[in-house]
């Protein structure tokens, strides 16, 4: 008999529960959709509000606010000075921070085994090249290399500093593939980064580097998730570095890949990525005078016709002018898959296009300084001097290009693209 009473009450209770559940799902359903930057900003604001929004419709708090914290590092002046040194006109960076796995592939390509001794020999060749310091202001190292010594017992960091080359350190721990099946990645390495920075600084490093990779050219790439995730990683890394006395090189690489996408499409995605990165650097209180940028030049996809240096320069400069505030002292382009000659000619064209650019337009080259150097050495002691000679010639050509003064001929003309599969290794791999 009492079921007659309880059933309607039960039904009412169930109806209320469903209603509440529906409201909950409606409120949070947009997490399933790609989150725009604006939505994410508002979402973050909501989380930092001092009052919790109740779902029951009580009067909401009037103010949604957060005091803006400027994060001026205690190392601010030193960071600005070091960044300005590395970005000085006519000099650039030698990127020699390949992980052990990647270095191994390179060594093996000239018949050299991937041992610690051989990796050490190879870097010694680079860092003791006579006169390299006239053209190179910084050298990025892998963690193993930062602690290595030359045959005569001198620390690599000291050898570099004696040449006027600031030691830098790759601090990311490699790429991780993002869900979605499109081969997009995020970069790892924030855990324990502060402690690692302290240790690297103690060893003599003055700057750091973190490589984020944005893939374009395939339908759906880049996704908003990939852009936000990589931008966040870069900004947080930069903040931690500055807090611990290292100048962060911020590297958002829109990677040269397969596809026939145009140079303007590369430019569009690059602008989008830089907009997010700059916004987050601003939000996180990173001092722009104390960072360096390491972007890609704007190039069409691998299956599209190669763009000539004037085109590359015009589009790349336009992209930088639209995106990078003048406080950044140096833009150090990566060489990606460009041949050694292409990398130099493009850099010269950039400086022709914008001789009065507010930032240095210079290089942070890996393959474009090392490919022929490595082939010349091929692991043979007898080739040591010749290999160092070609390295310094390449560095000189790019130094001239960075000053807008390269006239040719190029030390290694006619080379083809130096491509490789997407590198996912980082520190410790």
């Amino acid at each position, binding site marked *: 008999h009492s079921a007659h009473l309880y059933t309607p009450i039960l039904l009412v209770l169930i109806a209320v529960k469903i209603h509440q559940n529906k409201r909950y799902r409606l409120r949070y359903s947009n997490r399933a959709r790609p989150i725009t*930057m604006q939505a994410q900003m508002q979402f973050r604001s909501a989380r930092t509000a001092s009052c919790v929004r109740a779902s029951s419709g009580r009067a909401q708090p009037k103010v949604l606010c957060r005091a803006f914290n400027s994060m001026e590092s205690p190392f601010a002046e030193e960071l600005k000075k070091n960044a300005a040194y590395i970005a000085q006109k006519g000099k650039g960076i030698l990127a020699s921070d390949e992980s052990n796995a990647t270095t191994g592939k390179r060594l093996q390509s000239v018949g050299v085994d991937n041992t610690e001794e051989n990796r050490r020999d190879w870097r010694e060749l680079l860092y003791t090249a006579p006169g390299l310091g006239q053209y190179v202001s910084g050298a990025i190292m892998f963690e193993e290399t930062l602690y290595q010594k030359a045959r005569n017992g001198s620390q690599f960091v000291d050898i570099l500093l004696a040449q006027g080359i600031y030691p830098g350190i790759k601090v990311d721990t490699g790429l991780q593939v993002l869900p979605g099946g499109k081969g997009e990645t995020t970069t790892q390495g924030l855990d324990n980064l502060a402690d690692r920075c302290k240790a690297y600084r103690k060893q003599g490093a003055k700057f750091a580097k973190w490589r984020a990779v944005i893939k374009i050219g395939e339908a759906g790439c880049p996704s908003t998730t990939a852009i936000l995730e990589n931008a966040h990683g870069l900004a947080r890394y930069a903040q931690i570095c500055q807090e611990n006395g290292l100048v962060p090189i911020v590297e958002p690489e829109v990677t040269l890949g397969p596809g026939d996408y145009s140079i303007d499409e590369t430019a569009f995605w690059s602008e989008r990525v830089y907009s997010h990165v700059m916004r987050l650097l601003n939000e996180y209180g990173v001092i722009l005078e104390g960072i360096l940028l390491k972007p890609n030049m704007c190039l069409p996809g691998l299956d599209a016709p190669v763009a000539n240096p004037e085109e590359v320069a015009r589009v790349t400069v336009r992209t930088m002018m639209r995106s990078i505030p003048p406080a950044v002292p140096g833009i150090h382009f990566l060489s990606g898959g460009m041949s050694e000659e292409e990398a130099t000619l493009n850099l010269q064209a950039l400086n022709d296009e914008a001789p009065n650019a507010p930032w240095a337009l210079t290089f942070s080259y890996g393959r474009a300084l090392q490919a022929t150097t490595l082939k010349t050495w091929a692991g043979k002691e007898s080739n040591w001097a010749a290999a160092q000679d070609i390295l310094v010639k390449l560095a000189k050509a790019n130094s001239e290009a960075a000053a807008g003064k390269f006239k040719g001929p190029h030390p290694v003309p006619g080379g083809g693209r130096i491509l490789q599969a997407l590198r996912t290794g980082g520190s410790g791999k």
Partner: protein
Amino acid sequence: MAADLASVAAKLAAPGKGLLASDESTGTIGKRLEKAGLPNTKDIRRAYRELYYTTPGIGQYISGVIMFKETLYQSTAAGRRFVDVLADEGVMAGIKVDEGLAPLPGGGEGETYTKGLEGLEAACREYVMAGAKFAKWRATLKVTDSLPSDLAVERNAEDLARYAKVCQECGLVPVVEPEILIDGAHSQTRFGVVTERVLGATVAALWRQGVALEGCLLKPQMVIPGAEAEGGKVAAEEVASHTVAALRRVVPPAVPGIMFLSGGQTEEEATINLDAINKEARVVGRCPWALSFSFGRALQASVLKLWSSDQTRVAEAQQLALALAQVNSEAALGQYTAAAGGHPSTLSGDSLRENFRGWSGQAPAGGAVPSPGGSGEEVLMAH
């Protein structure tokens, strides 16, 4: 279209040139006229603006004039349209397109958003036909220990960007004005921090909306301490170093010109500070945008005082207007040196600060203006 916008923006930001902001709404100009003892009638407003627009030689120093809607359609006493008279001197006509401030729902006390997006496209097309080449929209942000809120920053940045996009689609160069109010006791350092935040958000929003930076201009406040800050005003060199540092951190080189508003500064302060900013920019280097002016009060206050005392002294008033424009042109080149008689301002020492520039929670008395849609409905503005 993009190339035209870029060339118009470059002309507006040409070296040694700046903007005359004479776009005070009927309510705002009314307050000033009444304070000077003049009635706020349509003809007085027309005659007052005619003073500036027919100043011989004004085009040497002024590249553009921002007008209120009423003024865009007005003519000289002799019957020539203002737009044409200005064009003869090589001066471009601009138009204020926002419809004033309103309290921001969910925002902090005194925070606002700016009205006017509704119907903006139709209005812009009309203004282009009337001869306007550029537009302006003013957002305001308030500084306290906890303000501006995220909401105010993001909302105003987004609205500015949407306005800018509509303008560019219609062929007008947008002047983007995120004014950070000087009201308050905040320090110059805090002001700089807020400036970086607000301009950073604005630039990001401009990208999101697809606005071509080459075809727009920025109109920010110089970085100065709050009006009630401890220690009062600071030296021009301080203003310069804080302002240049903040701008270098957030404004990409593609923006051709940064045209400062004068806010509550006196005529002389505005010139001296602008000059210091340009000198600093040349010392620091790497400041790729023009650093110029878009002054309202700082180009008009002395002129109004003179003219209101005797409306027949037109030539004298025009000479004064020209002199004020000239010293600011020199300042925009970093070449201002006070002439033998000093700065032409006749009001040195008097602050030009007005306390109804933001939202006080009340509409200003007697300030009703028709909306651009021309529906006849009056809209109150705190502007």
